[in-house]
């Protein structure tokens, strides 16, 4: 029986190659040297399928093994069949078999020889007939040719039942392996790369949003996300002259000492630094703005502050996430990246969501609160720095207080019980009245239970933490050094819009050519613009079908607009040249896919795009 494994993955294609490459390596090291991966486009029928399989199988054997195998290799034949393949396999496996089995007895114990693994990367695109026939053929040879098929499935495993009839799928022994959802991968990457003070480089809210939006809205590709991160790193060091200071703290301090006069001037020009200077006493202001050594010392201090700020920031952010991620309806987002984005933008405590989150927190039950506190304690405790030492202690104190509550609560309950007296039998009016009275009484004299007080304390404590540590990075002096904020360049590079670029190029050639003569107001067509631009602009004014004669005349009018003043008669030769230019422009437009010839009317062309008029 051909054994068969299935992986279920997201839609993205670029990531899959990586996954399969690592899978192949792992299998190669642990299970078998015979690994073949086939692509749907190489296998239009069974013949090509077997051809590819055979050649790859023999290659992969020659690569890994000594030269003696090479001699065993059968001479190239034009015919490939399962028969020849399995006999080849028997000879090779017997030749290399004994060596293999000693080492890897444990892993491949159910087979005498290492099995052949065939990876079909995207099962959806294989034709059903090829798959069916191959499975039937290989099931005939299962004894001499142990085979494992690995199907890569991007949609849902039900596709197997759609592709293979029961007669074929009953030959398989199917097991399902599901990879992590790509959103979880994203969370891991963010957690390890951005939500840590370990790396000095940070990205601003807008840039982060561009990256996550591309990931969530467009491609689900981790690889592209990492590429985006790398690009922003590159852009940051390229655009920001002060990015020399974006490195480890000790290294940065060393570099500050060697800053040139120009670089000092750059620091003074930073908006965040200017704001900082304005807050200082006037004497210090002057010193900072004129004396370079004072500036350097101050910069060192500020960078140190920034580092400490980040360390505290992420700890408190994680604590806050622990608090808010269990609330109903997730007012501050389910994922930590959403919370991070809100906190990056402005003061989180000013937002409505934060207020509602606090309100919900004030209604939490004890066990929930305790588990949250426990998690927070773990987060705070795990950090190596002692910045938030007192906070950690405080959280621990809260925990012990909650534990002690259990004992106290019983006494309290007894006290409450005696207070509520049984209602006497009365008529409706009196009952209503007495109920109202009781309600009034309870509201005014309502004594908070110990638990409630403690809960209030915890929430206030959390609130204070947030207010003191989760300040937005813009408020920090020198934040420009480590934060990359040019979101638009990212968007331009990563989310290309070819159609819009093409439209801009044809509609407004100045944008790319930078020729002053091409500068024109909206809507008018300069006659010195490239021919294709003139033709394009004219065609925008037409409906779905364009009359070529009219178009050509309009073209000629525009082109000769300037010359008309000089000499009103246009020579025959000139006419022909313009005609040729027009035809060339039209065929260029056809090549670009804007128009195509139509059979509806012979002297017309059809527009393939809409809009623009």
């Amino acid at each position, binding site marked *: 029986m051909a054994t068969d494994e299935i992986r279920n993955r997201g839609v993205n294609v670029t990531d899959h190659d990586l996954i399969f490459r690592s899978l192949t390596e792992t299998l190669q090291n642990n299970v078998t040297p015979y690994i073949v991966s086939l692509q749907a486009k190489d296998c239009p029928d069974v013949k090509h399928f077997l051809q590819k399989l055979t050649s790859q199988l023999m290659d992969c054997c020659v690569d890994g093994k000594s030269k003696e195998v090479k001699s065993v290799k059968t001479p190239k034949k034009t015919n490939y069949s399962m028969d020849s393949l399995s006999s080849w396999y028997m000879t090779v496996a017997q030749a290399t078999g004994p060596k293999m089995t000693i080492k890897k007895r444990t892993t491949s114990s159910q087979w005498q020889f290492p099995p052949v693994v065939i990876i079909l990367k995207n099962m959806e695109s294989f034709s059903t007939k090829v798959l069916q026939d191959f499975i039937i053929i290989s099931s005939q040879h299962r004894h001499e040719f142990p085979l494992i098929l690995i199907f890569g499935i991007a949609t849902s495993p039900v*596709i197997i039942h759609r592709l293979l009839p029961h007669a074929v799928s009953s030959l398989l022994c199917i097991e399902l392996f599901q990879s992590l959802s790509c959103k979880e991968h994203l969370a891991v990457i963010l957690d390890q790369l951005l939500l840590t003070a370990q790396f000095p480089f940070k990205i601003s809210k807008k840039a982060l949003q561009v990256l996550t939006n591309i990931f969530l809205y467009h491609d689900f590709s981790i690889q592209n996300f990492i590429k985006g991160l790398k690009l922003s790193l590159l852009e940051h060091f390229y655009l920001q002259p002060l990015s020399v200071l974006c490195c480890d703290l000790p290294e940065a301090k060393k570099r500050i000492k060697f800053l040139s006069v120009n670089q000092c001037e750059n620091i003074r020009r930073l908006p965040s630094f200017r704001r900082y200077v304005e807050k200082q006493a006037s004497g210090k202001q002057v010193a900072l703005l004129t004396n370079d050594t004072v500036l350097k010392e101050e910069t060192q201090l500020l960078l140190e502050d920034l580092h400490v700020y980040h360390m505290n920031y992420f700890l408190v952010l994680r604590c806050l996430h622990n608090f808010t991620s269990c609330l109903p309806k997730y007012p501050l987002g389910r994922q930590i990246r959403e919370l991070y984005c809100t906190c990056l933008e402005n003061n989180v405590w000013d937002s409505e969501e934060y207020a509602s989150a606090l309100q919900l927190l004030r209604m939490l039950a004890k066990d929930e609160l305790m588990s949250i506190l426990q998690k927070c304690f773990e987060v705070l405790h795990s950090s190596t720095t002692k910045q938030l030492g007192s906070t950690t202690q405080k959280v621990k104190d809260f925990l012990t207080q909650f534990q002690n509550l259990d004992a106290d609560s019983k006494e309290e309950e007894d006290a409450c019980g005696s207070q509520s007296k049984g209602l006497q039998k009365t008529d409706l009016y009196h009952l209503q009245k007495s109920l109202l009275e009781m309600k009034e009484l309870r509201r005014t004299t309502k004594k908070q239970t110990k638990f409630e007080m403690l809960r209030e304390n915890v929430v206030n404590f959390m609130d204070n933490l947030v207010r003191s540590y989760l300040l937005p990075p813009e408020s920090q002096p020198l934040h420009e050094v480590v934060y990359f904020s040019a979101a638009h360049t990212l968007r331009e590079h990563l*989310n290309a819009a070819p159609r819009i670029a093409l439209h801009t190029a044809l509609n407004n050639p100045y944008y790319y050519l930078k020729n002053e003569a091409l500068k024109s107001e909206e809507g008018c067509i300069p006659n010195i613009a490239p021919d294709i631009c003139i033709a394009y602009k004219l065609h925008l004014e037409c409906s779905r079908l364009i009359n070529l004669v009219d178009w050509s005349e309009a073209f000629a009018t525009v082109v000769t607009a300037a010359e008309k003043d000089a000499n009103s008669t246009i020579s025959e030769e000139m006419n022909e040249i313009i005609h040729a230019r027009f035809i060339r422009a039209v065929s260029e437009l056809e090549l670009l896919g804007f128009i195509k010839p139509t059979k509806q009317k012979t002297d017309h062309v059809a527009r393939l795009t809409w809009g623009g008029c």
Partner: protein
Amino acid sequence: MSHLEGAVLCREAQVSALQALFGERHHFSFPSIFIYGHTASGKTYVTQTLLKTLELPHVFVNCVECFTLRLLLEQILNKLSRLNSSEAECPTEVTCETFNDFVRLFKQVTNTENLKDQTVYIVLDKAEYLRDMEANLLPGFLRLQELTDRNVTVIFLSEIIWEKFRPNTGCFEPFVLYFPDYSIGNLQKILSHDHPPEYSADFYAAYINILLGVFYTVCRDLKELRHLAVLNFPKYCEPVVKGEAGERDTRKLWRNIEPHLKKAMQTVYLREISSSQWEKLQKDDTDPGQLKGLSAYTHVELPYYSKFILIAAYLASYNPARTDRRFFLKHHGKIKKTNFLKKHEKTSNHLLGPKPFPLDRLLAILYSIVDSRVAPTANIFSQITSLVTLQLLTIVGHDDQLDGPKYKCTVSLDFIRAIARTVNFDIIKYLYDFL
């Protein structure tokens, strides 16, 4: 002969018919015999055991493996020449490109001492694949005896009736032999035949009886039933091994095994979970309900815009293009369904299946159903292509059509509703059929 009877059960009539056809070794037999019957009705097994036990010279070829004419012919010739030569010497491989060559080479091969005086049998299993090969192949094999002038019989095995084979040009009619399906009694007898030695035959027969009671309504495939019988037998024996019930305690055993078999029908039989997983479950004695089958994973993960592209494609496929104004323009005025109903549109579009739509229409619908502004970026277009590779959309017409490609949406209504629910889009409101 007695050996044959022991090996082949419930096929006595067919065996004797074949034996009668074969006759003595040196007799000329019928030129071609066509055997057909449903899956797992013993065609291959009976033919193979018969030829082996009678020690007749024969070649057995499975036509699925031979996807080209050359492979098929060479395989037959090579196997024949191997029959000829003694085991030690290795005959040279012949090459044979056409049927004409085959006839010539066949004469050479069968001219030896071994094969001269007796009938040679060529068995072509899964003969339906012959129909897809060269047109002269099937008529050629049918009158191979006449063409080669040798004592040869070709046996075709197929699941399809002979009428579906007959070429337009006419051909030599083979002897047609039908293998009927096994009846429930036959199945019982055959399945009980391979009982494990440590248990008595009666005990195993009772088990088979229960097994058939559960599975006979859905599956008559002998192979599949045997597989299931082996797989579930340990569970059946469990009370006996534990000492909770005796071998004769059929009622108790039945109560133990019946729900288990029913679960197996929903999972193992449909290959929802693999047999090794099933065995593991049996060993650990956990609830099979916990293990999710393949069909449980219907959820498809798609990026946000891909979902909307798919929804737009679905709408474009199932709504008439004229109604787009009604659904996607804000001030469309009131148009009643009956007003613009054409005669042929009275039938539900969902019954007619998806219709092709141009790319532009897909994009126009996409822009109007997504709340935020969508720029026509390269990412959007590549998502359409990746939806095509996932077979959620299919491209209609040529592959390399650059100007105005057309697509169809191939997903079901349930699927698209599930997708639409994840993005809070009420798709039913936008479907013409549900107006």
